[in-house]
């Protein structure tokens, strides 16, 4: 063949255009976060820092939903199970064991991996609606158990979680410092994003896309579909739990509401509004949803009516979501620029 490698080069070119446009959205998200931090710090603000940190934390949850929904095609209606699990485990460690960020994260990761594995074995045998209902059911069961367990604070949750200092070797971050903790959470959630984005581009991640596209053919390519789905589910559980583990550090308390369906449902809405299958879209979506809830919530207690209506319009007019809508023009520009550089 005269042009060996030409097809590989063409494929790589087309993949780069897609990846670079999404990386562009990710870098823009960081820049916007830093700009916000600069303005908020200049204004001496605390409220908006806390709100933006909450958006990042729920963005991490939405990211985990997108790993399942956007990449593997599995609609989880119970992702709050792992988010709440992370929040509770982190709260218990910080309050009762040691006020150490890294210990809380390590324990959260271990517990979430184990719980994620058990839930995956139960739920990933089913597909579509049945999978969605099983995840929903599991989260409801755990929420009710927590709600009725006095040692976990029952309906009151756990309060009085201490302010901690996160040891980052070169410097420390105090969770009481709204600006510093916001910047830390920005770095933390973006690290989760870049990890997921990296995995999505590896051959292992591509198998998830293959499962989403045509699950029945995948075994005939030699991949153990059942195992791959379990691993994807555990990854999503870990991402959700690590995000949830930040919550008690932000708010100083956890409550059973973190495990409720409203949190799971909101995460799905966030993914769809932000752009399913983009991974970065859910983070934009979370800023939008958390921001809107707060703004509208300051005028009316019926903010869910507005969010619901917005969701309906978004699905009808922007089914690709925010990032999905702006991605193709950016991709074309990047492709054109690369072509110009080559010529």
């Amino acid at each position, binding site marked *: 063949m005269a042009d060996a490698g030409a*097809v*590989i080069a063409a*494929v790589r070119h087309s993949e780069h255009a897609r990846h670079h446009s999404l990386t562009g959205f990710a870098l823009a998200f960081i820049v916007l976060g830093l700009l916000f931090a600069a303005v908020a710090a200049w204004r001496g603000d605390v409220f908006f820092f806390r709100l933006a940190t909450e958006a990042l934390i729920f963005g991490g949850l939405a990211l985990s939903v997108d790993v399942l929904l956007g990449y593997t095609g599995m609609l989880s209606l119970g992702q709050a199970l792992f988010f709440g699990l992370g929040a509770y485990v982190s709260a218990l460690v910080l309050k009762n064991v040691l006020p150490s960020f890294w210990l809380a994260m390590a324990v959260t990761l271990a517990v979430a991996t184990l719980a994620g594995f058990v839930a995956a074995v139960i739920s990933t045998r089913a597909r579509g609606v049945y999978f969605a209902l099983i995840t929903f059911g599991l989260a409801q069961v755990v929420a009710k158990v927590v709600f009725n367990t006095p040692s976990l604070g029952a309906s009151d949750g756990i309060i009085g979680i201490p302010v901690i200092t996160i040891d980052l070797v070169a410097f420390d971050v105090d969770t009481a410092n709204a600006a510093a903790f916001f910047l830390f959470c920005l770095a933390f959630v973006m690290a989760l994003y870049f990890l997921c984005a990296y995995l999505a581009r590896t*051959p292992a991640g591509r198998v998830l896309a293959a499962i989403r596209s045509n699950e029945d053919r995948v075994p*005939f390519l030699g991949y153990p579909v059942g195992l791959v789905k379990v691993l994807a589910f555990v990854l999503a559980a870990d991402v959700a739990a690590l995000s949830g583990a930040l919550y008690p550090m932000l708010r100083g308390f956890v409550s059973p509401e973190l495990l409720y369906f409203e949190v799971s449902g909101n995460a799905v809405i966030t993914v769809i509004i932000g752009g399913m299958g983009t991974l970065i879209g859910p983070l934009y979506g979370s800023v939008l949803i958390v921001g809107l809830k707060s703004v509208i919530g300051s005028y009316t207690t019926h903010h869910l009516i507005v969010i619901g209506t917005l969701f309906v319009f978004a699905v009808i007019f922007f089914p690709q979501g925010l990032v999905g809508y702006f991605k193709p023009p950016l991709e074309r520009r990047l492709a054109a620029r690369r072509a110009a550089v080559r010529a």
Partner: protein
Amino acid sequence: MSAAQPRNARGTPTANEAAATSASAHLASDVPLLAVGDLSVRFGALQAVDRVSFAIARGHITSVIGPNGAGKSTLFNLISGAIRPDRGRVLFRGVDVTGRSPNRLLDAGLARSFQITNLFFELPVFENLRLAAQRLEPAWRALLPTQRSAHALRRAEALIARFDLAHKATDAAGSLSHGEQRRLEIAVALATQPGLLLLDEPTQGMSHGDTAQTAALIKSLAGELTILLIEHDVDLVMDLSDHVIVMHQGTKLAEGHPAAVRANPDVQAAYFGEAAVA
């Protein structure tokens, strides 16, 4: 080249010898690549496959023919692990693989294509092939960037050229024409580098031109691997095959050299009826 000529590069019996001997003697020299014994499965009241036994030799193209409902596709599903048999055994390279899952069968070297095109329609054509070729890489490379799996990339590129789909490499598989999708269907199964390839009606719904091109492709594969083929087009089967198995109402009616099978009166009655009279 016609199938009546011997294909004897590996010292396997020539087609003429095969025609002259019985099916079992034909396989006596070596452990057959694939052997099925007494294979049976029932769907409710229907005995879809009924005590079917045969063996196929390395390097041959063996075809399964039979009228609609004869149990050909069910036989494929039994061999490829898509469904489990009620009784009987499947031996691959002499090892009992009955009831193994499709991915474990592929690890052993048995791949298949589908009668109804079964691709990753949303993914690019190249990506369909790369996914299939990835199993040639060690498992740990699955967590490195895709570009590091150079062997899989080269395999995908070689196949995309061989199956004349290079100009569509970055297009979604779903956007291809029917004939192109059928070619990709074969190429994806082939990309896994199997020792035995099961092709379920590879030319299904193809135009005459596409059928001839695909037949030439299948023929060109014969030196590289063993092929078991389901096909409706009798002329194509007679031209391509070293060995033909005739299915009828779930049972094996006959097997042997294409010419011998065509001459068999039972087969003529069951299958070639109209063609033989005309």
